[in-house]
């Protein structure tokens, strides 16, 4: 994995719409909105104990996206010694966008895709704040 300023760790809930929404939002951030400064970290690699992934989590602030109250993404990052700079729950975002009910699993419905976009937009300022902190840290030596 390459070095990034911020890591995004979405829910790995396979087969659940809210988990899929979390991953779609993470893709939008890491592949489209801030591809050079953010990196998606798959939860599965943390669970499996992948050393390179653990190392990235230990060295970079994380934004975790949880698909349900079990909050696996947040818990796993903390267990790996990572710093959860921000965490966000898909359900909380849905409560702010009631018209965007996510449905579907492998392929989200229109509401789910729009919810993922809304989620990405909420995450973006958090990511930018962390990117800015990283930049200042680099400048200061």
């Amino acid at each position, binding site marked *: 994995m390459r070095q990034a300023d911020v890591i995004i760790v979405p829910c790995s809930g396979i087969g*659940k719409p809210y988990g899929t929404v979390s991953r779609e939002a993470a893709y939008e951030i890491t592949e489209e909105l801030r591809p050079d400064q953010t990196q998606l970290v798959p939860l599965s690699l943390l669970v499996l104990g992948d050393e390179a992934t653990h190392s990235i989590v230990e060295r970079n602030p994380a934004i975790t996206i949880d698909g*349900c*109250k079990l909050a696996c993404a947040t818990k796993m990052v903390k267990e790996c010694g990572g710093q959860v700079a921000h965490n966000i729950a898909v*359900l909380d975002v849905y409560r702010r966008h009631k018209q965007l009910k996510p449905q579907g699993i492998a392929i989200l419905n229109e509401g789910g895709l729009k919810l993922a976009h809304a989620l990405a937009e909420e995450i973006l300022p958090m990511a930018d704040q962390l990117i800015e902190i990283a930049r200042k840290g680099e400048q200061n030596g």
Partner: protein
Amino acid sequence: MTEFLKITIDKFTFNVATDRYYNEEGVWALAQGNRVRIGISDFLQQRSGDVAFAEIKPQGTVLAVGDETAVIETVKVNISLSSPVSGSIVEINPLMETAPEIINQDPYGEGWLAIIEATQWESDSSRLLDPHAYYSRIQIQAEESV
């Protein structure tokens, strides 16, 4: 202080509060005089998943037993909840608007849904399940689903 009957099946534990009655769906009714507080059981909230929204019928709504009182939307399902008593809604839990997840966190306490001014509590309650009867019912359902 509320006491509970506990059922543990597989990795799940369900509490049944012993100080109230239940309808078949898992809506509980706790009477204080003619005022009956209603909510959903621990089993129903766990089986339904995280609550996203709870819409309660407006204050003043007159209900017969079995009438829809609330609709709860969770991450898994939309549930229509029927009234366990007849009467009119006199109070709605304000947390249903701002923090409906309280239903998951404290289904028998702060997660109550509404208070109904009952018109015939004695006869309505005689048709509800007591805690032991409800316990037996959910034990069967839980074993089937796990």
